[in-house]
């Protein structure tokens, strides 16, 4: 059964930015969009494993810093015409605190 894990206060993540959370088997990128929603995806682009956390965020997408693939933060899928998908994790903000489900 997966659990909600407490990460950090929302203001620790810059708006239109991200922070990295280290977990046992790698890194998870937690994004904060301009509408103050949070999204969590595995910090690896489906193309060549670029660190998505380092990309530029616009709307609910992030652009990989290595080769410019655009990834939808809601689904983890690459935007057409590119293909591929990275894992997503449920994320939420409660009382100003960010949680992700592992």
């Amino acid at each position: 059964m997966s659990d909600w894990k407490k990460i950090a206060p929302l203001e620790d993540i810059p708006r239109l930015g991200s922070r990295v959370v280290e977990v046992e088997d790698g890194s998870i990128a937690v994004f904060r969009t301009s509408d103050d929603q949070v999204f969590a995806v595995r910090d690896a682009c489906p193309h060549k494993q670029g660190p998505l956390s380092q990309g530029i965020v616009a709307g609910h997408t992030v652009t990989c810093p290595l080769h410019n693939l655009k990834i939808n933060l809601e689904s983890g899928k690459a935007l057409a015409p590119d293909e591929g998908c990275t894992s997503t994790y449920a994320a939420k903000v409660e009382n100003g605190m960010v949680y992700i489900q592992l």
Partner: protein
Amino acid sequence: MQKILKQRKFMKERLVLVGNGMAGVRTLEELLKLAPEAYDITVFGAEPHPNYNRIMLSPVLAGEKTIDDIILNHREWYASHGITLHTGDPVVEIDRVNCKVISESGLEVSYDRLLLATGSNPFIIPVPGSDLPGVIGFRDIADVDAMLAAAKTGKKAVVIGGGLLGLEAANGLLLNGMDVTVVHLMDILMERQLDKTAAEMLRKSLEDKGLKFLMETQTAGVLGEDHVTGLRFADGSEIEAGLVVMAVGIRPNMELAQKAGLHCERGLVVNDTMQTYDPRIYAVGECVQHRGQCYGLVAPLFEQARVAANHLAKMGIARYEGSVTSTKLKVTGIDLFSAGEFNQEEGDETLVLQDPARNLYKKLVLKDNRIKGAVMFGDTMDGTWYFQLLREGTDISAFRNTILFGQHDLGDAGHGDETRVAALSDDAEICGCNGVTKGDVVNAIQTKGLFTLDDVRAHTKASASCGSCTGLVEAILSSTVGEGYEAKPSKKPVCGCTEHSHDDVITAIAEHKLKDMRVVFEHLEWKTPDGCAACRPALNYYLLARWPEEYQDDPQSRYINERAHGNIQKDGTYSVVPRMFGGLCTPSDLRAIADVCDKYGVPEMKVTGGQRIDLFGVKKEDLPPMWKDLTDAGFVSGHAYGKSMRTVKTCAGDTWCRFGTQNSTGLGVKLEQLTWGSWMPHKFKLAVSGCPRNCAEATIKDFGVVCVDSGYELHIGGNGGIKVRVTDLLCKVDTEQEVLEYCGAFTQMYREEAHYLERTAPWVERVGLAYIKERILEDEEGRKALCERFRIGQKYAQIDPWKERAQGAAAHEFTPLKITA
């Protein structure tokens, strides 16, 4: 009543498209991209086929392609987008009062918006007998079928009209075994596209293929009783023919619009938003007249489609401002290209290259060193390049002496003569960065129905990295889809988030005193709430360059390298380059760097191309402590990671070198002290060589100084990258003080006026050396003001980002989060 209104709110609006051709369906495609759910769409087409590529009818007639090859949208496409398609059922009436259309079969469909794309009809010369069976136009699949059938039975065909379409029809009939004569009213073929020389060469080549010509010949009547048997001419002579193809031009098909009372002149009149005089009705394609022009080529139609779609999607910001067109003849084995105004007028100059032995002819018509027209025969490989220079109004004086030899003569990265794409095999590599072959590109274009360079980039990644193969990809695109490929619009938007160009944005930021990105978005009506990874870094730069004292830099609009102040590597680690002014260093500097490498386990060190030391493989969280150690040893950031001033490369100079004329290292240190830390539209490199032997390679730098005995030569706009470009000599000055002033002024001019991600080399080519000389050399006051603005900006730019971060700034950027519960 209220209830009905309420219900209507939940229903989608209805859009009816009349005309299932390239312009209309293209508009739907653009619309679906912008607003996929906006309308219930119904399409009426007179022909029984789904949308096909009309431009490729000539290759179908010539037997080089099949009908199936040229279908652009299959019926499944319409179905998958929920579009109702009625083929073989033309609309015969528009009831504007009740907002509905009525088709030939009696179908009535209501609309909220109507899009007319009825195309054009071939012009049939009004002579006796022109309605006889066997007299046809060359317009649609039915005409091609009729010609192919005639070729099986008859032997002799006459094509009236020696224009593009007529010659393609004639060539097709010839390949189908017919005896073909082309009848032309004028004394030169394709008179709207060619001058006399090129037209004569064309006629000769076509005669060699077996076509016959009757020039300056006027048709007086078509002979025959129940089928055509021949033609009679104005001089009384006659010719035998079992098939007559009329290809003397097209007329906008506006009968339906006229019947509905819409204002028509030569075509259906639309404004810059592609709207007719009825605000519910839009029109695109060959049926329209825009600013007095009717277009019969496909590239303008696509620009119109994009504008109409923008307004149908209720974005309401795009404008169509007319198109410059170019033409290519699709007759295999004959290369012909024409664009713009190719007949010389007063004040124009003409460059001509003519080689009768190789059957080669190129003519460029220039006005004020800018191309206004081009005609080429025999070798059209550089047509797309000339056309681009024409549309962008590029000053060609810098390469005027070699322009006729083509773009590869300017030194493309090793493509050279290989630019003849047609001759390339399918496994020839086109894009060296992404490993894309010609076959990959052709395959993607054909199977995915691509028309634009951007589409091909998105689908194949060809030319999406360094861009040096862009010309090749464009050439493949045009040879695969015909001239129908969508040339870049004359005004290129910054990105998909806006219609505005870089220049529009730069001007607006200055004139309207816009000092915040959100304000820019609002003022220029950005289409996306947050912009995108292409426009945000550009806007951030423009704001920073214009308002250095006030604008608050936005780290989230910077590429990761500039946000992390290191260069991201393929494994996600960073590289660190400490600045060494002028390339000078001391034993203790090197000891400090060595200690840092030991302490943080740097796996690899390397001397860079700009004479600095690069430390690879640094973990992101190690960056701030490493910077602290380097800062303590006296180093500042080397900015090897940014769109910024990089390094000043120097040679030994007169302190040591027996050939040195000046203190090149000393001057290099001063230049680097002046310019370090400055953010630029793109990376910016300097060099100082102590004598004309030029060991520091100053003549391939953005700003290079070559010392001579009597002073300093200043060189600008060089590049040693993708496309090597030797600098232009700006001027010679006498003192180091002047070198610094001219450098500051040139740098600031580039910072203020170049487009984001435009190196100095293309910028200098775009605006012209003469303009830069005017601003920097002739206007002393302007030069001093530029230099002063540069110094003001530097006050804010020369705060070392490493030191700030070593002291704890932006710590969140470098520290991972921990799971707390």
